[in-house]
């Protein structure tokens, strides 16, 4: 019955989604246009963003740029970014998921205060934090290192991740855990085997968020990292913005290359995002 009802509905949904996607992608076409236009004289003006004569010269220049020791620097920086973003995701989600579970399931003094503090950390403008952070990282001997950057990013991501995961944990019925407890499972087993699988959509969201936190950040990275071989990609791109002039073509090409892995990560995560596991889990 529902099948029959869906058909005309689905068409309407497509008719709604297609213009929304077009609107969403239009500015992206301008970025693509910038990346494909070999020289500023040929930049298009008007409505159609793509150049008449496209060229991949910006992409080629970016990919083939070498540092003073002859290393292909873009690949190196891509690896830096991947390492930092993946490590941030691993560290950030691990730290958050345990804290969120405790905040959702245990009652202990300071729980409310903890939640409020997490929220409060997001309220002080980040621009004012970079100078004191620099001094702290200096004390910890974590300046100019990807490990230091990872720890800073993971910490930045924790408040959102904890709030998001705690909110989701709260919606998971405790009956399941109680049933597992009756079956003789330990708290640790309950956490790993019962709660985490059920929280997959929220885990996917927080993982994506942590990844993005690290992936696109450049202000702190530019402040804490000195050596070009340890730059992350956004810092490398920022190098194209000069005092007097900017390599917009290369910047746009780089921005598109930077966004590709994010889309891959999202594509990989989205089946967890909409896994629909809870529906089955809770029914019983």
């Amino acid at each position: 019955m529902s099948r029959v009802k869906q058909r005309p509905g689905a068409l309407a949904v497509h008719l709604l989604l297609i213009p929304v996607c077009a609107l969403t992608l239009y500015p992206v076409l301008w970025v693509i246009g910038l990346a494909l236009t070999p020289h500023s004289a040929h930049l298009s003006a008007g409505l159609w963003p793509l150049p008449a004569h496209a060229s991949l010269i910006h992409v080629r220049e970016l990919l083939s740029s070498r540092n003073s020791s002859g290393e292909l620097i873009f690949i190196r920086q891509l690896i830096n970014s991947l390492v930092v973003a993946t490590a941030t995701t691993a560290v950030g989600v691990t730290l958050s998921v345990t804290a969120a579970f405790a905040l959702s399931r245990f009652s202990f003094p300071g729980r409310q205060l903890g939640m409020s503090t997490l929220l409060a950390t997001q309220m002080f403008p980040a621009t004012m934090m970079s100078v004191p952070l620099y001094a702290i990282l200096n004390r910890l001997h974590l300046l100019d290192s990807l490990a230091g950057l990872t720890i800073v990013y993971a910490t930045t991501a924790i408040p959102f991740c904890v709030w998001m995961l705690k909110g989701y944990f709260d919606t998971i019925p405790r009956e399941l855990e109680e049933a597992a407890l009756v079956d003789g499972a330990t708290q640790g087993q309950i956490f790993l085997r019962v709660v985490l699988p059920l929280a997959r959509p929220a885990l996917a969201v927080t993982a994506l968020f942590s990844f993005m936190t690290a992936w696109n950040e450049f202000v702190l990275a530019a402040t804490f990292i000195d050596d070009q071989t340890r730059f992350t990609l956004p810092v490398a791109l920022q190098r194209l913005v000069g005092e007097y002039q900017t390599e917009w073509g290369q910047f746009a090409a780089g921005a598109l290359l930077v966004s590709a892995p994010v889309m891959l990560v999202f594509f990989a995560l989205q089946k967890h995002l909409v896994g629909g596991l809870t529906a089955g889990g809770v029914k019983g």
Partner: protein
Amino acid sequence: MRAAALLALLASLVAGSSAPVAAEPLADTRARVLVWHAYRAAEEQALLELIARFNASQSTYRAEALALPYDAYASKLTAAIPTGHGPDLFVFSQERMAVWARDELLAPLDEDAIESGREFPQAALAALRSGGHLYGLPLSMKCDALYYNRALIQTPPTTSDELEALAIRNTDRAAGRYGLAYEANDFFHHAAWLHGYGGQIFAEPTHRPQLDSSQAIAALAFVRHLALEDRALPEEPSGTLVAQLFNAGKAAMVINGPWFAGEVQGVSYGIAPLPIVSATGLPAAPLLTVEAALVSSRSPVQAGAKALARFLVSTEGAALRARVGRQVVATRSAYTFPDIGNDPLLTAFRAASEKAVPMDNSPAMLSVWEPEKRALVSVLSGANSPTAALAQAQRRMLAMTRISPPVQSPWPYAAIAAMISIAWLAWRRRLSLKRVTARVSTRRGELMRAILYCAPAASSILVLVLVPFAIGIGLSFFHRADGHYTFVGLANFIDILASRDYRVSEPMSFWFTLAVTLLWTVVNVAFHVSIGLGLALLLKNPLLRFKGVYRVLLVIPWAIPNYITALVWKGMFHRQFGAISALLSALHIQPVSWFTGFSTAFAANVMTNTWLGFPFMMVVALGALQSIPQDLYEAADVDGASAWAQFRHITLPLLKPALLPAIILGAVWTFNMFNIVYLVSGGEPGGSTDILVSEAYRWAFQRNEQFGFAAAYSTLIFLFLLGWSAISRRIAREQPLENA
């Protein structure tokens, strides 16, 4: 198992790549001289070649270059040099020289001063002096000259009247052609006209900036005439637009610096000095920035750094920088080489630099740029007369150079703070004692587990967030002037809250900015949530085809670095060349000048930020929707509930626990979302679309580094958000009751 292996691999990668650069095969015992620069392309190549030559000639020192993004360069130097992590030698213009000299970050180079007098132009050396000391050796000189397209202009203008006539003759707005194109709204380029009309930025003998002199008004009126009466200038000109027009043969003349030559392609051009202003007979003397090699006062190898600096400005060094880096070098002897002495670009700009006025290197200059920019934009958009705009600029400039509040003793404040914290702790303790005793000992194990679960996250937050945060709050009680902090109690807060320098209704007052920030937050969050949730609801339909494709397409705005997308949006809002104007014209609607009115500029910011922000909410909502059991809908279907009723009574209430955190945090982030406002409207018109955090940023980094005042702004932002969250949580807590 697999996850553990992956983690171990990651850990080793992070550890490995964070280790110091691997030792070179042959241990180099020479002392390292670290050089920082923000050069790119040819200039970088020239510097690297010179460093290689220096190293080949040296037995005591070995130089190593580090290239940094220009955006982060100044703040990084400020942070790094005092902690001993900075460079030994670095390349920078004279812009912040007096500030750094005052903060004792620079080593004086006085022993080079006498010899330098012969080798370098006086203007270049004057730019690098502060307090009687010479702080840098001049590398290259950058100032404006007139580029002209030889196909359109046979002889370049020598007077401003000729320039104007040529500009009018070569303008055909219908064909998109302009007689003159330059970044007229940038004070660096405008300063030449100010000097040509006999004006100066600094009034003597007080040596304070005076922005509203009669000469300044005359100069601004001249440019206004070119732009609005003659209509010979393109509107809202950016560097990219100027290059685009000149290269397409659509700009006959361009005012720009030597770097512009690198962007010109396919146009036969000449370079002439800027003309003489007909009204005064004075040359339009451009501002001169001098890029110099500066030595850090904290460097352990100052002798090596100085040796390298001398090598860079030597005849050999300068010649290579001129040939490879295309720099207008300051070293006179380099021009004795015929290929350099006869180079048309280098000689034209060298001649221009001889007439140029060196940019003042004192801290007061740093508070001139922003008011001047605002004045130029408002006059060139037709919103303001030169007189009114410059009077406004003068007021703004005075407000930015704050007079130091009286010094106070910190002890009374410390005592009050201690008393408040003791009282608070006692109160908390009583509360928690009550709670804990009520639950007694069965909770002991749970408490231990909670500590175990929370400790890693809590400790990293304590060290990396709460400590800098406490430092930030502490700073807000200090005033930073002349590089020293003095305790001023609540003076910063009082100045801000009492809106000391502005009427409450003016865009620069705290209260006006707060109102704009609130509006900004509410509008953005409303759009983010409604669009994000709407799309998530459409995309969760399991029978919908291609939903994976839709989801990935719709997440793209989040994936692309927003620095470039924000600027692409700004380009689309361009009054003359933007895509939105093209669309409006195609629909026979008069294009809008987006950044001249508050509501349109605000709308432009909101549109950009909505585009950037809805994918995040969509992703969160997609995840949150999964927490709603599907059978509830099935039951509702059976009961014959309408789609709207299902949304209202099932989706919304059940979505709340998972979506609310994202909304609350989203609101906090939007409140502090500074780069979109900064990049798209830039606060235009007149600073009215600035939000609180962009004000804090400007105070910290663009208005003479008044960190104390910026910290006070940040603390107020924090307190405001804290109050707001307390209220919103109360609402959040009450609502479930109402729904039940």
